[in-house]
């Protein structure tokens, strides 16, 4: 009973907040509506018995959205939404596409012969996840690690304005920094 109520509250909140993301004029509000929606997703995951992943989703989404808000404010012409304007293209076509996709997904969900539940959840799903990632799913874990590392390098290269010549001048072997800005060895 209680779990049913929790499910419905979180589900309605997640969907409502998700819709509001694209209806708010203020970028800060849109970002935090998205955070609300994703926190509800984390709540649903907790409800399904995945304690660790649910809390991790809460943790990661909070941090992500806090940083996202900075970029939202930085790159939108009208971050506080004091002068409302629409920045959308092809809203009707997109709405039609989304309705069709949803209808197709819903039909699939309702008509598919879902298999019976096999087995029982382990006593400690967190441990099962860890054993799996460090055992049979090791390759997945390593790929994720490599992807994250590549992301760190790639984003820094893309986002920084300064190259190494800007920092060290023509003499790359020199140990003093000539260019402006921060970084180690300033």
């Amino acid at each position, binding site marked *: 009973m209680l779990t049913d109520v929790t499910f419905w509250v979180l589900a309605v909140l997640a969907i409502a907040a*998700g*819709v509001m993301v*694209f209806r708010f004029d203020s970028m800060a509000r*849109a970002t935090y509506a998205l955070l609300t929606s994703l926190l509800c997703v984390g709540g649903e995951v907790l409800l399904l018995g995945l304690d660790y992943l649910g809390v991790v989703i809460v943790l990661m989404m909070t941090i992500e959205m806090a940083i996202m808000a900075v970029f939202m404010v930085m790159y*939108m012409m009208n971050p506080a939404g004091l002068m409302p304007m629409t920045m959308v293209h092809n809203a009707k076509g997109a709405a039609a596409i*989304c309705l069709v996709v949803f209808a197709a*997904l819903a039909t699939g969900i309702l008509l598919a012969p879902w298999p019976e*539940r096999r087995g029982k959840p382990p006593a400690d799903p967190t441990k099962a996840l860890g054993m*799996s990632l460090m055992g049979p799913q090791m390759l997945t874990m390593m790929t994720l690690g490599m992807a994250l590392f590549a992301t760190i390098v790639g*984003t820094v290269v893309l986002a920084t304005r300064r190259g190494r010549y800007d920092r060290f001048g023509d003499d790359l072997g020199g140990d003093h920094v000539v260019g402006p800005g921060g970084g180690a060895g300033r």
Partner: protein
Amino acid sequence: MSLELFLLLAAALFCIGLFGALTQQSIVMLMMGLELMLGGLIVGAAAVWHFIAPAAADGQVLIVIAVTVMAVEMAVGFAVITALFRAREVDITDMAAELRE
């Protein structure tokens, strides 16, 4: 609570996100749509783990992957926006498309 309900919730979140990703002109808003789609994916994966195969950890691994993809997507997206904006003062998809010409 049943598998169907959770999957319907997942589909709804996915479609709202899809709508955002298709309509929004601002690249940052587009990314918010993508995040919402991945949120739907997470709900779906958790539901399938719980209702179909709780004994295997594969559903959990899928969630880990989805969360990582969200982080990577955001980091790369912001880096690309920053690079685009530095180079051309562009922060809208339609304007980025015109750069071709």
